[in-house]
């Protein structure tokens, strides 16, 4: 295995393992700022916490291209401490109760990480009907090892955030698959970082100014994208995302959304956006010409920052390029590193050819 294989994987691992549920993206932002320092002309953090970094092109007739990836991940917020020291919680972002029971979590109190487990009644004590039904989130609790409210209160408080505690794993044939808690959307963040590092100084675009927006709170209503798009006021936007796919055995081909290993997925339409058709066609043509693997998202599902960006101000020509990701919004998101790499290649190719 060459070291090149691990270079981008290391970056994605670092980003995915960092604590950053919606509204609590500081650690992720800190990591990103350290990674892009020296690789842009200007970098600002706006009032919501979005990072906006700018690389200016060489030409005199420059248009603005915004590249957006969100920093936040789905997570939890502690809502109440029970007498017995267990914690009740709410989810931050959309989560399926099926992927919660038994998971390790990290709770961030005012100074450090407290480990916990999302627990529910053990199988031995479940009634027959309970064994067939999904445990609702209201019946789950987080165990941090405290046995009284007082003890628990010294460790955390209502309002504290939590995320999954899940190791980053590289696996599968030829080590092409990755598993992590926050591939959505730290892969997008990694992609933006890598593109910045490759373009700055040596490969500046001609007639484009590039705005790299690392947004906050995507998972709870796409808030960050609203202010970022307003401030940047771009002519174009490419949203770099992850999209939930169902390319698993037994699912009809038509419902698989996209397939791991077949390249980044370009969206025509999803639950939030009808993407700009000419821009979409341009991207698809560019991929074909450059022989970069790319697929079209097949199913109307999901949504992303594009939902706000494309209707910001006078409207923005927007496309979305997503890494097909299995088991999205769980502790074990699974993606293919080659998809990430083809997305990076396509993004660079688009930057080189734009504006169209």
């Amino acid at each position, binding site marked *: 295995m060459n070291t090149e294989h691990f270079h981008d994987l290391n970056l994605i691992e670092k980003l995915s393992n960092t604590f950053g549920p919606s509204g609590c993206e500081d650690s992720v932002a800190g990591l990103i700022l350290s990674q892009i320092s020296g690789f842009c002309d200007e970098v600002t953090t706006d009032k919501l916490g979005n990072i906006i970094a700018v690389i200016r092109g060489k030409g005199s007739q420059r248009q603005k291209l915004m590249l957006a990836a969100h920093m936040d991940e789905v997570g939890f917020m502690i809502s109440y401490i029970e007498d017995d020291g*267990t914690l009740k919680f709410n989810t931050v972002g959309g989560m399926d109760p*099926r992927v919660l029971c*038994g998971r390790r979590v990290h709770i961030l109190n005012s100074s450090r990480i407290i*480990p916990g487990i999302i627990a529910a009644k053990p199988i*031995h004590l479940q009634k027959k009907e309970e064994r067939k039904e999904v445990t609702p989130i209201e019946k789950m609790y987080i165990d941090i*090892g405290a046995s009284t409210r007082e003890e628990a209160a010294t460790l955390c408080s209502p309002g504290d955030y939590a995320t999954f505690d899940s190791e980053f794993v590289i696996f599968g044939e030829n080590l092409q698959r990755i598993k992590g808690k926050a591939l959505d959307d730290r892969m997008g963040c990694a992609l933006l970082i890598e593109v910045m590092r490759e373009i700055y100084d040596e490969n500046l675009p001609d007639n484009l100014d590039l705005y790299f927006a690392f947004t906050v709170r995507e998972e709870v209503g796409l808030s960050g994208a609203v202010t970022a798009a307003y401030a940047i006021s771009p002519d174009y936007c490419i949203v770099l995302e992850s999209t939930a796919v169902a390319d*698993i*055995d037994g*699912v009809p081909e038509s419902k698989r959304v996209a397939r791991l290993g077949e390249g980044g997925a370009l969206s025509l339409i999803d639950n939030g956006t009808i993407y700009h058709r000419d821009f979409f066609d341009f991207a698809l043509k560019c991929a074909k010409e450059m022989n970069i693997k790319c697929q079209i998202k097949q199913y109307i599902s999901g949504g992303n920052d594009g939902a706000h960006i494309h209707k910001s101000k006078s409207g923005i020509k927007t496309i979305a390029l997503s890494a097909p990701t299995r088991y999205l919004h769980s502790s074990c998101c699974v993606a293919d590193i080659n998809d990430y790499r083809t997305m990076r290649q396509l993004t660079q190719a688009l930057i080189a050819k734009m504006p169209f």
Partner: protein
Amino acid sequence: MINIKEMLSSLSSLMSVSGFERYDKDRLLSLISPYFDAYREDAVGNFIFIKKANNEDAPLMLIDTHYDEIGMLVTDIKDNGFLSVTNVGGLDTRIMPAAEVTIYGKEMLFGVVDSTPPHLKDPKASKKLPKVSELLIDTGYTKETLSKIVSIGTPVSFYPRISELEGGYLVGKGLDNKACVAAAVSAIAPLNADSLRYNICLNLSTREEIGLVGGKVGAYHIDPDYAIVLDVNLAAAPDAPKHRTVKPGAGPSVSLSAVTDRALTHHIIDRAKRAEIPYQTVVETVSTGTNADVIALSRCGVPTAVVSVPLKGMHTYTEAVSLDDIEKTARLLREILTSEVPK
């Protein structure tokens, strides 16, 4: 003295799905054999460790701690590198979607259990848990390559990972019943032949999770005078009935049951009191749900008692046990092994 945390962490990482307990046998023996005089196996794969008292006529004490853990077996190799499985022992599918597993084929493979994305969920069926037969394990391999590594019947276990909680809890898979294996070994290791009042057979019994097999067979050929079964017990939880659970962190629990021997049980409680070891009792009227149920009926009957370590999240990959409870259980066992049961 044995470092219980290290011992249990090592034990937890061993693959011991019921019926496949031999998989990590060499590592198991290297962990435990140094503390015993002899070792033997039997026809159902029980690992039996022997420690002798100075007095050859001392009664024979069987300590039974089952060593197997729940898991899965591969039933089919599907397209795109997915595996379907069946359960070995009581597997709770509540914890399976998007869970991590290890597949013990010709190579060890990492896998993730599938979960249905939101757009495919039938709102009517959305409350239904998947059946074990509906679970798919994503290996990231092509079917062709996967077929060379994995076959029907290959065992699958929860992904081994150890972590900790505040309050001295260790978290991982298979702590049912390796927490008790750690307690037993830790209790016996420092005892010398002079202090022992019994000849000891420690049976790391097999196939408990699928029907108390090793416990039954072991008790028959060991033919002990007394038996103590060490197994985990359900720890108190917010939604669990108090009378069926024990308090984690409050020391070992002693079972009060029609199945177990009253004199031996009272002796254990007495030793706990005298040595000031915190303990608790749990009422398990007609069944302890442990190997004791079969050991007590072996041959002409064996006076048997059950001592338990409280365990949170039983049969999950995040079972949590108080290291202090294990230590206290070990102390209690040591007290028992160095004292005689009153006639």
